[in-house]
C-alpha cells in the first residue's frame, strides 16, 4: 500500500514539473516500503540519496524559471527550497555518519509534508506565473531533469570512477 497515491489534484499543469513530482512521490513510496520492510541500510540509503539528488535536480529546474520573476512570493519559494535542501542534506550527513543507527522516519514525514503542502500551494503559484510566460514555460519544459551532457563531460574529464 503506497504512502501517497498519486492524485490528479497534485498536478500543477506543467508536464515536466508534474512528472518530477510524480517521481518524488514514487521515491517517497519506495522509502516507505523500505522502512516498513526493514530493508538494510544499502537500500534505505540508496532511496535517501535518490531523493536528495532528485530534489536538487528538480529545484534547479524550478529556480531557473523563478529567476525570471521579481515577486516576493517567489523569493519565499526559493527560501523554502533552501530550507528543504538543508533538511535533506542534514539527513544525508546523519546517514553517512552512522548508517546502522539512521532513523529514516523523519525523512518520510518531511517528504510527505513537502509533497502535500509545498507542491499543492507554492508550486501551483509558480505554475500560474510560468504559464503566463511562453519564455518561462520554455525554460521549464526544455531543461532535462538530469543533465546527461554535463555528466558525460565530467566523465571525460576523469570523474566517475575508474
Amino acid at each position, binding site marked *: 500500500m503506497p504512502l501517497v497515491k498519486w492524485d490528479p489534484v497534485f498536478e500543477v499543469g506543467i508536464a515536466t514539473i508534474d512528472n518530477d513530482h510524480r*517521481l518524488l512521490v*514514487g*521515491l517517497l513510496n*519506495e522509502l516507505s*516500503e*523500505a522502512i516498513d*520492510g526493514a*530493508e*538494510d*541500510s*544499502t*537500500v*534505505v*540509503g*540508496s*532511496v*535517501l*540519496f*535518490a531523493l*536528495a*539528488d*532528485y530534489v536538487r535536480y528538480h529545484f534547479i529546474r524550478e529556480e531557473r524559471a523563478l529567476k525570471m520573476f521579481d515577486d516576493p512570493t517567489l523569493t519565499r519559494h526559493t527560501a523554502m527550497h533552501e530550507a528543504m535542501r538543508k533538511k535533506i542534506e542534514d539527513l544525508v550527513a546523519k*546517514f553517512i555518519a552512522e*548508517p546502522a543507527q539512521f532513523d529514516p522516519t523523519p525523512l518520510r514525514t518531511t517528504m510527505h509534508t513537502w509533497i502535500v503542502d509545498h507542491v499543492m500551494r507554492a508550486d501551483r503559484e509558480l505554475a500560474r506565473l510560468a504559464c503566463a510566460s511562453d519564455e518561462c514555460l520554455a525554460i521549464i519544459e526544455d531543461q*532535462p*531533469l*538530469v*543533465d*546527461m*551532457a*554535463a*555528466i*558525460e563531460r*565530467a*566523465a*571525460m574529464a576523469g*570523474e*566517475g*570512477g*575508474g
Partner: protein
Amino acid sequence: MTTRIDWPALKVLIVEDNHHLSALLRMVLKTAGIVNVGIATTGERAIEALWRSRADIALIDFYMDGMDGAALVRYLRRDPQSPCPDIPIILMTGDDSAKTARAALDAGADNVLVKPIAPSALFARLARTLLVPRMANAS
C-alpha cells in the same frame, strides 16, 4: 545539449537479488531516458538473459546467493560459452574496502559502484565506463 552516448537507445541488464534496489535502479535509469532495462535476480538467470538478448552494459551485484557477482563477471569474461565476453560491467557492492574493489577489477569488471547508490554516482560511472575504454580505466 547533445550527448555522445545515445542514452535512450541503451540496453542495460541489472543483476540484483534485492527487488527494492532493482526497482529503484530501474526508476533512476528512466530519468536518464534509459527505458530498455532487464532485471535478473541470479547470476545464472543473467547468463540466460544475455543469451536471449544482448545488453550494452551490465550492473551486477557483488554479493548474491549461488553464483556471486565476481564469479559471474569471470564467467562472462573468460568462459568459452560466454554470450558476451566484452560487455562493459559495473560491479555494485556494499563493501567499500580496497580489497573488494581490487577483487571486482581482477574478476574483470570495468568499474565498481559502492552501495548505497546515488543516481549522480550511477550516471557518472555509466558515462565513464561507456566513454573510456577498459584499458584506460585499468591504468
